[in-house]
């Protein structure tokens, strides 16, 4: 971020998460195999201001969902720190203090079929956070609050008596949102909330999320692989590749003036309605395994601008045009910045 004077609501510094995927000890010893460590998240820094939508994009396996889980505390980090509204999430504190912090952040998951307990009525699903944090005075208050949350996501309080299977995918995702809102959070981590939905339903959910954000002053960390969705919903965007952030920029800057070669490649590959009959040159190669990531800049084997330095030295994130980019070619000025304002500029 350009300056520290902005009110940083969520601050992530040097966040790392490694997973040990080695074979069992005996097998390793007998067959002489080395340990295998997946570097799912390998040192990322993110600052999210209050009320903004910060999106993480990247291909599968780049570590974006791991970041989401680290932020809400579903995984402990291997290294690095997460600060939430000035409180270090790893700092020593009592259970009660922790619960008070936890109440303020909630998560929405990708698959609305898997994230709702099929044996619970919708009422109980939405009431669970309210009960867990003791936010209701009595039964009538609880019913009131649940009804209010359901209305907020355009369902009716009467829907509370039904079970999740009675709803369509889009409605189930609304229930997940109602559950996430139940504890009056300020910060929502949304892990691919619309990728399991059809486009017309996706539009409903995205509109609902934007609407809720305005009314409740929510801050979103939005994880998605769909660049068009990210373009639509975000204030700022971070692009991840193999566990690292390669570029962070305000949304318009990222899409109009992409800097990192990987960002440019991603933008080139999205099929778009305006591109009927377009001939495009797809980039060769695939995302390498995060078990043995390439040395230096992890993108160098696929990068058309890579040189010797890229192979050995890991690029640092340098501030540029209100964001950061981690690329030697940009730093050295070997690679210019292209302007690709789209035909129909934004409204």
């Amino acid at each position: 971020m350009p300056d520290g004077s902005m009110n940083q609501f969520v601050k992530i510094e040097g966040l790392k998460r490694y997973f040990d995927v080695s074979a069992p000890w005996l097998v390793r010893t007998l067959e002489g195999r080395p340990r295998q460590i997946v570097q799912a998240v390998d040192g990322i820094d993110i600052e999210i201001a209050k009320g903004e939508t910060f999106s993480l994009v990247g291909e599968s396996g780049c570590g974006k969902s791991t970041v989401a889980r680290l932020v809400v505390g579903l995984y402990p980090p291997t290294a690095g720190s997460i600060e939430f509204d000035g409180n270090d999430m790893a700092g020593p504190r009592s259970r009660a203090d922790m619960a008070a912090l936890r109440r303020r952040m909630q998560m929405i998951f990708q698959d609305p079929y898997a994230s709702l307990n099929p044996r619970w009525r919708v009422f109980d699903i939405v009431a669970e956070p309210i009960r867990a944090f003791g936010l209701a005075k009595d039964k009538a208050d609880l019913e009131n609050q649940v009804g209010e949350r359901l209305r907020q996501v355009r369902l009716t309080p009467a829907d509370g008596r039904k079970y999740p299977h009675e709803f369509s995918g889009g409605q189930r995702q609304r229930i997940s949102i109602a559950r996430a809102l139940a504890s009056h959070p300020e910060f929502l981590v949304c892990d691919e909330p619309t990728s399991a939905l059809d486009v017309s339903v996706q539009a409903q959910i995205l509109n609902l999320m934007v609407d809720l954000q305005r009314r409740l002053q929510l801050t979103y960390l939005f994880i998605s692989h769909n660049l068009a969705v990210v373009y639509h919903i975000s204030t700022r965007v971070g692009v991840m590749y193999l566990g690292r952030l390669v570029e962070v920029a305000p949304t318009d800057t990222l899409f109009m003036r992409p800097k990192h070669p990987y960002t440019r490649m991603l933008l080139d590959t999205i099929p778009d309605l305006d591109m009927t009959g377009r001939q495009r040159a797809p980039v060769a190669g695939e995302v390498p395994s995060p078990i043995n990531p390439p040395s230096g800049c992890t993108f160098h084997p696929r990068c058309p601008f890579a040189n010797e330095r890229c192979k050995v030295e890991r690029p640092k994130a340098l501030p540029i045009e209100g964001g950061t980019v981690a690329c030697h070619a940009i730093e050295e000025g070997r690679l210019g910045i292209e302007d690709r304002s789209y035909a129909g500029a934004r409204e």
Partner: protein
Amino acid sequence: MAVSNNPPLLEVKNLRVEFPTRRGTLLAVDDVSFDIAPGEVLGVVGESGAGKSLTGNAIIGLLEPPGRIAGGEVKLEGRRIDNLPYEEMRKVRGAKIGAIFQDPLTSLNPLYSIGRQLVETIQTHLPLSASQARKRALDLLKEVGIPGAENRIDHYPHQFSGGMRQRVVIALALCADPRLIVADEPTTALDVSIQAQIIALLKRLCREHHTAVMLVTHDMGVIAETADRVAVMYAGRIAEIGPVRDVVKQAKHPYTKGLMGSIPSLGVRHDKLTQIDGAMPRLTEIPPGCAFNPRCTVRGQRCMVERPNLMSAGASRAACWLHDRGGVGAPVTKELVDA
């Protein structure tokens, strides 16, 4: 319908697919007609449950029981294939029609090397010796862009990445040089950068081999880039069919319009996406009249009682009374909706 004067390669007429269930018979594909010219790419889009995959499966004769073709006919090069016995259909499938499915891991046998699977398929359909077949398999693998094909041919499916597996599946579909490929969501399981590679590959191969493709997907972006014509399906019927440019830019059916508006685009950033309220009806609850009428913003009384068939609308054909001389009828009043 087809732009060219050649006789169509594939003709589908009034196809109906039904599922007998305990609570009555469900009509999953209802009176679907279209044709595909040689070398043409027809995109079939729709949301989940619209019947697009069933249409594809009915054409290649792979409907899962209890699903069955209840009416209509499918003709390939003028010959009916929907009523062929299983063994004969097996010969058509592979030789004349290739199939590509969504998940490349489940369409390959994990126990055989990909070379063996290719050779087996080639020898089933072409009179080649084992060594000739292996040479052809190698050529196909090179053609679909597998690096180091000479070594990779003896590898097993799990040794390939998702994108490479899908390339192998495409090679399998091309084994006997079919006239038509039915590709059901071929890129849905892949990452965007890999998806772009696979689409480019499919386009190039079809051009070179003059193969027609029926591309079934829910991704309008993929269709916009690949297809010549597109059919939009809704609740088991074709809502609109026409040249891809017309359908994307000047949609004639209110559903297509809503669908296009609900796709976030990189060009313009709207404050709000167009949204179609509600969801597609379940097969048990298809409303009378036009199936889209409860979600339609421009419906009239006629839409609630009379079902529209495809009719001419500009360069496309749409199943909507807006394009009929009679129009949609009187405006719908609130009392009528409640009744």
